């Protein structure tokens, strides 16, 4: 069994995880459907957002130059990083040069992608996650399993046990008690931190602002109380104008959590302008490539339209059953099985494009209608071309292709297979419950329909012969 299959099998037998997924996935899906329906022209707005993302990427270099000029005019410092290591080094250097010891962070998938916390800790810096879910992930030395709800895999009792150990709350504490305990613990850290690190949901070129969306308010603390703010921004995040970011913000909130807008939509337009204003003294914006230009060059560029709402995870029949950890990657679910190989190449991720039934639920849920199945087919083809497919698949398909262009041989094969299936053990209502060799994977979890004794073309001939 491959890594993904092994982890997926474990996930399917994890009772706690299955309970957590059952309870939450429909909740997210229904919230999104209600919120999109409540938007005036919600469907037309999605089409519009798709055009915004496409047209922005088409002039990506120009928009970043505009952003850079405006951000610098506002007093922000703009840095560029080619890869994860360069981005991490920049953050560590900024912290070291300014005598930073304590860092607070708000949730950022990009920081997970570049493994920033590890780099900061290696640099002798203390870093604390402040989004409640990410805080729990950090306390339990876990990984987020959903891009919007990081601890969707944990039950209340898991969190209560963790907080009992770390924060001294009663082992049977309820959710408000747990939230209050985390609020008190993190409040102290907000007031002591020297530096705040965030991601960015969007960067607005015409104003040089970055946009952060949070519900808890931790994103606001991280960008207000510490004297230095560092924002990590993937180079697909730019939006040309305020009007366009307005469209995307409404769709993001509706698709991610079913809200009309997230509680706090914060535009950061540089550091404080006056010595006794209460914002940070310095704002550093790090624009990170880390494989995005590789994704942009070709058939997978559309994956960069993504605004990271997580809606595709919630509707995916694979994600809904195995959860996020089975993917073994930073980005799980339908977005993950395209974006991980698009950023890093198929090498480490060649199994992931198989983790889909190509049902298209992701595209239907996506606020910008990204055609994920199309890209999965491209990736599957590429994994065959690059030799990642199983050997039997390769010669099996060749054999099939050869037979398919030789009608007599094809008919003979069909006739033989229909006869041979009678010899197979295990049948229910005529369905095959066991297939030999590499085909056993299919029948491990479901039946295979019986092959008809008479082929379609034979039947066609027969019926046409009867026609007047």
């Amino acid at each position, binding site marked *: 069994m491959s890594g993904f299959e092994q982890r997926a099998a474990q996930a399917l037998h994890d009772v706690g995880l299955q309970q957590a997924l059952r309870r939450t996935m429909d909740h997210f899906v229904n919230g999104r459907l209600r919120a999109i329906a409540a938007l005036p022209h919600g469907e037309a707005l999605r089409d519009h957002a798709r055009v915004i993302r496409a047209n922005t990427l088409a002039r990506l270099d120009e928009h970043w130059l505009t952003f850079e000029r405006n951000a610098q005019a506002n007093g922000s410092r703009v840095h560029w990083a080619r890869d994860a290591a360069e981005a991490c080094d920049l953050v560590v250097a900024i912290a070291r040069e300014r005598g930073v010891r304590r860092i607070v962070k708000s949730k950022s998938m990009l920081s997970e992608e570049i493994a920033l916390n590890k780099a900061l800790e290696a640099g002798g810096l203390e870093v604390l996650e402040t989004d409640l879910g990410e805080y729990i992930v950090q306390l339990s030395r876990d990984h987020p399993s959903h891009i919007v709800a990081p601890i969707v895999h944990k039950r209340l009792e898991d969190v209560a046990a963790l907080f009992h150990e770390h924060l001294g709350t009663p082992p049977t504490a309820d959710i408000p008690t747990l939230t209050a305990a985390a609020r008190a613990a993190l409040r102290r850290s907000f007031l002591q931190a020297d530096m705040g690190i965030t991601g960015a949901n969007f960067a607005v070129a015409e104003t040089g602002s970055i946009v952060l969306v949070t519900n808890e308010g931790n994103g606001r603390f991280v960008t207000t109380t510490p004297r230095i703010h560092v924002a990590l921004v993937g180079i697909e995040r730019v939006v040309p104008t305020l009007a366009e970011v307005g469209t995307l913000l409404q769709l993001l909130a509706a698709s991610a959590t079913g809200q009309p807008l997230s509680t706090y939509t914060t535009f950061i337009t540089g550091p404080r302008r006056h010595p006794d*204003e209460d914002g940070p003294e310095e704002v550093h914006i790090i624009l990170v490539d880390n494989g995005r230009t590789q994704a942009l060059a070709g058939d997978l560029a559309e994956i960069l339209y993504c605004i990271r709402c997580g809606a595709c995870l919630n509707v995916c029949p694979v994600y809904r059953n195995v959860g996020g950890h089975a993917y073994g990657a930073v980005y799980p679910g339908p977005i993950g099985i395209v974006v991980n190989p698009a950023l890093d190449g198929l090498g480490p991720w060649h199994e992931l494009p198989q983790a889909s039934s190509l049902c298209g639920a992701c595209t239907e849920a996506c606020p910008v209608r990204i055609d994920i199945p199309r890209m999965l087919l491209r990736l599957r083809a590429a994994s065959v071309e690059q030799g990642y497919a199983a050997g039997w698949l390769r010669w099996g398909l060749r054999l099939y292709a050869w037979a398919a262009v030789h009608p007599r041989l094809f008919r003979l094969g069909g006739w033989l297979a229909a006869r041979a299936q009678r010899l197979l053990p295990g049948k229910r209502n005529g369905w095959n419950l066991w297939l030999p060799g590499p085909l056993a994977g299919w029948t491990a979890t479901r039946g295979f329909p019986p092959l008809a004794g008479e082929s379609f073309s034979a039947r066609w001939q027969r019926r046409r012969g009867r026609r007047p």
Partner: protein
Amino acid sequence: MNETARAVVLERIRQALSRAYLPAASRLTPPPPSAPPFAEPLAAVFARALAAVYGQLHPVPDADAAVAFLREAWVARGVRQVLSWEPACLELPGLEPALAAAGIVLVPARLGGPDRRAELNRLEPIPVGLTAAVAGLARTGSIVLAADRARGRLASLLPPVHYAVLRTEQLYPDLAAWLAAPGVRREWARHSSTIIVTGPSRTADIAQTLTLGAHGPRELHVVLIGPSD
């Protein structure tokens, strides 16, 4: 700045764009679909939307009534200090003396001294924050706050209870209408931050159960000044 990294990333983008397949791309981005106007007054739409996001609305006819309301609300809570924007930004004449008579002082939301931590620790116990929204967004029940020297971010963030004053003439149908309003884009760079607040701080991370007051205020009160209709 690392000039090499900048040049390399920009060059990579240009190279990639020559090969990028970007479905739905067009020469010009068309205007967004425009929302139909509301049949009812914006204040009524705002009231309903604010309630839906767990905010509390307090309609008052004029600024004097707003001052009286705030004083009574805070006296009832036993408040002695309020973390606030500069009184000039609130446009509530007579607020300071009315509060002073009740033993309540406005503390400016600022951080200018040499010891940032000490100042934050001094401001942290203040039980209530006061701001004045620069706009209200009816459809979503949102208020828009700006940040500068006179409009401290901490007033809407640090205390567990946030009161914001809003005037009915500042209401816009929605986010798109406000962003398109004359002056918004022009004035943008004057503020180091612009914050759209839609309800009190919340989280649903634990077992997807909604809890108010995660890190920011757990109560949001909007004092809406304007004739009731």
